[in-house]
C-alpha cells in the first residue's frame, strides 16, 4: 500500500505516531488513545496499516516500513512549519567562463615571447571566453580595467600570465580583491621570458604553461571559510622593553592587553643595562615605561607565567598559561624588604651576572616591577625548612605553600616579543673568561657602568678594585653569523670609558678566525683597532696579555663583547606555532600565521630607536585585526572524508605538527595545529584528505604540460618556501637555462606524491626534479627529508635507469644561480642519455 493512502486518515496517522513515540501498545491501549470506540472501525484501520505495523506477542509495533512512514510524517510537519529539512542540494557542474590575461611587463616579455601567439593559443582552449593583453598590469588603471572586463563578460575564473606571485604578492592581492573570482597565475616573466633567449622555444613554453593553468581551473580547490567574532584583546608574550612598548601602545588604542612574562619581573635585558644607545639611563627608562604600563587600566601583567598551549584561529585564540608560584602575595606585600634582611641563605645574583650575591628571597633591583620579593621554585624546599621570612613578614604576604596553577585567556591576536639571549657558549672559555678575574663579559661591564650596579658606576679591575689604565674589548662573541650588535655596543663603551676614564687606552680587538663572513666592521670610528688571525689570551704575572700574531698588547681589563643569540625557548614556541627561522636562528616574522606578530629582538638585535618604531608598527598591525568585529578565516586546511578514510593512522604518523588525532568519530585535523603543508596527502592511501592544492589539480597540470614538444624535457617540482623563490631568483638575475624545463609549485616537498612523479614520467617527461628547502631550514620541519626518502624508495621500485630520472636538490631561496646550473646539468645528462653518448643517467650527486 502506498504511504500516502495510509496517511489519508488522521486516525491511522495517529496510530503510527503513537507507536513511534510511545513504543509498543496493546489493542486496548490503541483504542483508548485514539478514541475509536468501535472495534470494527479500529480493525479496519489496523487492517489498512498492515505492512507498516505488526502484532508481536500481544502488542503492536512498527515494521521497517512503519518507521519510514513515521519519518515521512515528521518531514511533512517540518515542511508545513516552514522549516524545509536540510536536503543534499544537487551540484551542477559550474560553467567555466575563463578569462586569460597576459602582461607584457612594459615590453620585457614581448622581447622574448610573442603575445599574439599566446592570445591566439589561449583563445582556442575550452572554456576561455576572452583574452586581454596589458602592457603593465600592475598599474591601478590596468587593475580597474581588468575588473571591469571580468564583470562585463561574467568571467568566473581568471588566468593571469605575468610575473611571480611570490615577488609581487601585493599586486595580486589587489587584483584578487577587485575581481573577486579565483585567480590562477602563470609565471611567464621570471620562469620564462627572463631566463630564455628570444630564439629559444620560450613562446612554446609559455603556451604550455598557460594551457596547464587553464586546464587546472577545472579542478576546484577545497577551501571552506567561516566568520569569526573578533575578541578585543591581545596577548603580548615577553615583558622586555619591546613587549612593554607594544603593550602600552595597544592599551592606549583601547584594547585589553595581557602581558605575559616568564621571569618574576618585567623589563628584560634592558633593565640591567647602564644606558641605551644615545646615553639615557636604561633602568630609569624601563621603570618609567613599566610604571605608565602599570597605571593603565587595560593592561594585565602576568609575571612568572609561561605559555603552554595555543589553539583557535585569528580573531579568537585561546592561550593556555601556567602561572608559577612566586611565594609572595603581591597584593599584600609592601616591598619593605624585611624578608631579605632575615633570610640566612645567599646565592650568586643572576641579576648582577654573578658579580655579587643575593638572598634566596629577593627583590632583584631597586626599580623592579612588580616591586615585591620572590623565591625561585628550585629553592623552595630549602625555604620550607627555614620559614624565617614567613614569620617575620609584617604584612603576612609570604605563603610558602603556593602552588602553580593553570590559567586561560582568550585573545584576538598575539604579539611575540620574547627578545634575545646573550651569548654564553664555548668562545668564552676559548678567550680566557675563567683565566683571570679581570676578564669579564660585556654584560658584567654593563652592570659595572650602572649607577645601581655593584660598583656604583665605577670602572674598576675586579681583582684589585683599581682603575684600569688600558682596556681591551674583544668583539664577536656569537654562535652563528654577525650579531650586528656588538659593534654598536663597543662604540657605546668607548664613549662611556672616555667620559669616566679619560686617560685609559682602549683597544678594540677582532679575531679574524672568529669574524663572521657577513660582518661589516666600521673601523673608522675607533682609534685603536687590532685585527689579526688567531687571538691568544694568556696571563703573565697577573697581567692579561693579548697576542695576535707578532703583535702583543697588555691590558688591565678585558671585556668579551657578547652578541645576541635567539632565545633558547624559541624552539618550544616553534612547536606550537609555525614559523621559520633565519640562518642565525632568529624568528622570520613573515612566516608567522595570520594573527601573530613579532616585535623586538626575537627577530634579531635592534637599537632602542628601532624598537620604538617597530613596536608602533606592530601595534597598528594588531589594531587592524582587533578593530574589526568579524573576520572571515579559513576553516581548515585539510579535511578528512570519513567515507574514504580507513583509519590507518599514517597521516597521524607523518604530520610534523601533531595536528592529526584519531578518536571514536574518526580522524580529526586540528585546524590551528595544521599549517597546511600537505605532507599527510601522499601518506593517505585512500585519498580521503581534501586540501587546497588537490592532487587532481597537479595531475591535470602535469598532463597539460606534457603536451609541450621538446626533448628532453624536465618537470621541476618546487616548494613554495625555497624552490619556487630560487627559480624566481634565477629570473631576476636573468640567468639563462634550457627552456624545456617547467616549474610546478607545491606547498612543500613533503607534499609531492610519488603519483605525481610517476605521472610525469609516464606522460613523457624525461626527468623530474625536486627543489626543496635545505634540511634544517625547511619551513615544515622535515618535508625535504620525506621527499628524499620517497625518491629513494621510488628509485628502488623503478630500478636504476628509470630511478635516475628523478633528482632532488636542496636549495635556498637566494640560490638562483645554482637553480639554473642544476637544471642545465641535469638537462645535459638527460640529453646525453637520449643520444646514447653517456649511457645511463647518474644518481643524485648529493
Amino acid at each position, binding site marked *: 500500500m502506498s504511504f500516502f493512502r495510509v496517511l489519508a486518515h488522521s486516525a491511522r496517522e495517529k496510530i503510527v505516531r503513537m507507536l513511534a513515540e510511545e513504543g509498543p501498545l496493546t489493542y486496548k491501549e490503541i483504542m483508548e488513545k485514539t478514541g475509536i470506540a468501535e472495534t470494527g472501525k479500529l480493525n479496519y484501520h489496523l487492517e489498512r496499516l498492515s505492512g507498516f505495523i505488526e502484532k508481536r506477542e500481544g502488542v503492536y509495533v512498527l515494521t521497517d516500513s512503519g518507521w519510514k512512514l513515521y519519518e515521512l510524517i515528521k518531514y511533512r510537519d517540518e515542511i508545513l512549519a516552514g522549516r524545509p529539512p536540510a536536503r543534499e542540494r544537487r551540484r551542477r557542474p559550474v560553467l567555466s567562463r575563463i578569462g586569460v590575461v597576459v602582461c607584457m611587463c612594459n615590453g620585457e616579455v614581448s622581447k622574448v615571447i610573442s603575445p599574439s601567439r599566446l592570445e591566439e593559443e589561449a583563445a582556442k582552449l575550452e572554456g576561455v571566453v576572452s583574452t586581454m593583453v596589458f602592457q603593465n598590469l600592475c598599474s591601478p588603471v590596468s587593475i580597474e580595467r581588468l575588473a571591469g572586463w571580468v564583470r562585463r563578460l561574467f568571467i568566473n575564473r581568471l588566468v593571469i600570465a605575468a610575473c611571480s606571485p611570490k615577488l609581487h604578492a601585493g599586486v595580486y592581492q589587489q587584483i584578487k580583491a577587485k575581481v573577486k573570482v579565483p585567480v590562477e597565475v602563470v609565471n611567464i616573466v621570471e620562469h620564462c621570458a627572463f631566463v630564455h633567449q628570444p630564439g629559444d622555444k620560450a613562446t612554446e613554453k609559455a603556451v604550455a604553461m598557460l594551457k596547464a593553468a587553464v586546464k587546472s581551473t577545472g579542478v576546484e580547490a577545497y577551501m571552506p571559510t567561516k566568520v569569526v567574532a573578533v575578541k578585543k584583546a591581545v596577548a603580548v608574550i615577553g615583558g622586555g622593553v619591546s613587549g612593554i612598548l607594544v603593550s602600552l601602545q595597544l592599551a592606549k588604542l583601547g584594547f585589553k592587553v595581557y602581558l605575559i612574562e616568564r621571569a618574576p619581573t618585567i623589563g628584560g635585558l634592558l633593565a640591567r643595562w647602564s644606558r641605551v644607545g644615545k646615553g639615557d639611563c636604561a633602568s630609569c627608562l624601563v621603570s618609567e615605561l613599566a610604571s605608565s604600563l602599570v597605571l593603565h587600566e587595560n593592561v594585565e601583567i602576568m609575571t612568572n607565567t609561561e605559555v603552554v598551549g595555543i589553539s583557535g584561529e585569528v580573531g579568537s585564540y585561546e592561550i593556555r598559561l601556567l602561572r608559577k608560584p612566586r611565594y609572595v602575595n603581591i597584593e599584600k606585600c609592601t616591598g619593605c624588604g624585611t624578608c631579605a634582611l632575615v633570610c640566612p641563605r645567599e646565592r650568586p645574583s643572576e641579576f648582577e651576572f654573578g658579580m655579587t650575591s643575593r638572598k634566596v628571597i629577593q627583590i632583584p633591583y631597586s626599580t623592579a616591577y612588580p616591586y615585591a620579593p620572590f623565591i625561585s621554585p628550585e629553592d623552595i624546599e630549602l625555604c620550607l625548612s627555614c620559614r624565617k621570612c614567613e614569620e617575620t613578614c609584617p604584612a603576612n604576604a609570604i605563603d610558602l605553600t603556593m602552588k602553580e596553577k593553570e590559567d586561560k585567556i582568550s585573545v584576538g591576536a598575539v604579539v611575540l616579543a620574547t627578545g634575545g639571549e646573550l651569548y654564553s657558549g664555548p668562545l668564552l672559555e676559548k678567550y680566557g673568561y675563567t683565566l683571570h678575574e679581570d676578564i669579564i663579559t660585556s654584560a658584567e661591564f654593563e652592570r659595572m657602568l650602572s649607577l645601581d650596579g655593584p660598583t656604583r658606576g665605577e670602572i674598576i679591575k675586579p681583582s684589585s678594585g683599581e682603575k684600569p689604565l688600558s682596556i681591551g674589548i674583544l668583539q664577536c662573541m656569537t654562535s652563528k653569523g654577525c650579531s650586528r650588535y656588538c659593534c654598536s655596543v663597543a662604540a657605546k663603551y668607548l664613549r662611556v670609558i672616555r667620559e669616566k676614564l679619560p686617560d685609559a687606552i682602549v683597544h678594540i680587538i677582532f679575531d679574524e678566525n672568529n669574524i663572521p663572513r657577513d660582518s661589516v666592521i666600521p673601523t673608522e670610528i675607533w682609534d685603536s683597532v687590532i685585527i689579526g688571525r688567531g687571538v691568544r689570551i694568556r696571563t703573565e704575572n697577573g697581567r692579561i696579555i693579548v697576542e695576535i700574531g707578532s703583535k702583543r698588547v697588555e691590558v688591565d681589563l678585558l671585556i668579551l663583547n657578547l652578541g645576541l643569540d635567539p632565545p633558547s625557548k624559541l624552539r618550544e614556541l616553534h612547536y606550537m606555532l609555525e614559523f621559520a627561522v633565519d640562518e642565525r636562528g632568529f624568528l622570520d616574522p613573515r612566516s608567522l600565521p595570520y594573527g601573530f606578530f613579532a616585535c623586538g629582538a626575537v627577530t634579531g638585535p635592534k637599537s632602542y630607536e628601532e624598537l620604538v618604531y617597530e613596536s608602533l608598527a606592530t601595534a597598528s598591525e594588531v589594531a587592524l585585526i582587533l578593530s574589526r568585529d568579524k573576520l572571515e578565516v579559513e576553516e581548515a586546511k585539510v579535511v578528512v572524508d570519513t567515507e*574514504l578514510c580507513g583509519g*590507518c*593512522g599514517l597521516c597521524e604518523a*607523518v604530520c610534523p605538527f601533531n595536528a592529526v588525532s584519531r578518536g571514536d568519530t574518526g580522524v580529526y585535523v586540528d585546524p590551528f595545529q595544521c599549517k597546511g603543508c600537505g605532507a599527510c596527502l601522499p601518506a593517505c592511501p585512500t*585519498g580521503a584528505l581534501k586540501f587546497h592544492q588537490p592532487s587532481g589539480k597537479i595531475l591535470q597540470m602535469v598532463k597539460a604540460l606534457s603536451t609541450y614538444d621538446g626533448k628532453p624535457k624536465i618537470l621541476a617540482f618546487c616548494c613554495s618556501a625555497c624552490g619556487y623563490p630560487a627559480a624566481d631568483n634565477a629570473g631576476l638575475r636573468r640567468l639563462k637555462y634550457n627552456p624545456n624545463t617547467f616549474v610546478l609549485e607545491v606547498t612543500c616537498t613533503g607534499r609531492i606524491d*610519488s*603519483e605525481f612523479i*610517476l605521472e610525469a614520467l609516464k606522460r613523457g617527461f624525461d626527468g623530474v626534479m625536486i627543489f626543496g628547502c635545505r634540511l634544517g631550514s625547511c619551513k615544515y620541519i622535515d618535508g625535504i627529508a620525506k621527499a628524499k626518502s620517497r625518491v*629513494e*624508495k621510488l628509485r628502488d621500485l623503478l630500478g636504476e635507469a628509470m630511478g635516475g630520472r628523478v633528482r632532488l636538490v636542496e636549495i635556498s631561496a637566494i640560490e638562483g644561480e645554482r637553480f639554473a646550473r642544476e637544471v642545465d646539468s641535469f638537462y645535459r645528462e638527460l640529453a646525453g642519455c637520449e643520444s646514447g653518448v653517456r649511457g645511463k643517467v647518474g644518481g643524485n650527486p648529493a
Partner: protein
Amino acid sequence: MEYGERWAVIQLSGCSGCPSAVFSSPVLQDLVYSMPVAYFPMVTDSQRVLSADIAVVSGAVCKRAEEELLKRVRESCSKLVALGTCAVYGGVVSREVESAKAVPEVVEVDQVIPGCPPPEKLVGEFLIAEVSGGEFRLPSYNVCKECPRAPLRRKPPIRVRYLEPPEELQAKACFLDHETLCLGPVTRGGCGAVCIELGVPCHGCLGPPAKSYTSQLANFLSILDIQLEKSKLMQFVSRYIRVGVL
C-alpha cells in the same frame, strides 16, 4: 519465468579459484534462475561463449589465443568484468610468466573485482547488484577499516624487520607496531581482513584503493624504516602486482 541477461564465466591462465568464488557464492542458488548461464564450464556443459551478455573473466592473458578470445568476447558481450587479481593486475600468473598481461591491458573492462580469490562479500554484492539492476561499487577505503587489530600507535621511524610476525606478537596490536610489514594500509578493503584475523599480515591482493600501486608503495615505504633485505622486500611487495611499471 522471466529470463535475465545471459552470463559467461571465462577462465584464462590461472588457477580456478575465481570461478569457484562465483560458484560457491551463497547468493548463487537464489539467483540462478535470474541469471541464465551461457558458458560456465565449472557448472554446466559448455555452450558458446559468444552468446552471452555479461562476461566474467578471470585469470591473466598469456597466450595469443586468449587475447583473441578476449577481444571477441569484448565485441559480443555488452559487459565485461575482470574478476580476481590475475585478471585485474596480472596477479601470481604475471610473477611466473614474464609476458602475462592483465585483462584491462588488452581490452576495456566495465568492472573490476580484485582479490585472490575475490572476497565472498564483493562477489555476492556484485551478483545481487547485477541481477537486480542496482549499482555495485568497490570499497574505496583500506583494509585498516575492517582490521580487528588495534590501530597503529607508532610515530616515525616505524621500524620494520620482519615479513612474518614474530611469535611473541600481541594478539591485538597492529603488525606495524611489531616491526612486521603489513600492506593493509595501502590495500583496498572489502575482504573483512580475513588474513589478518588468522594472524597473517596483508600481502595486498586487492590492490591499491587509489593511485597506482607503485606510487602507493613508494609513499608507504618512505614512511617506514625498513631493515630488510631488498630482494626479500621486493619479492614480498610484488607477490600479486608488478611494481616499477609506470
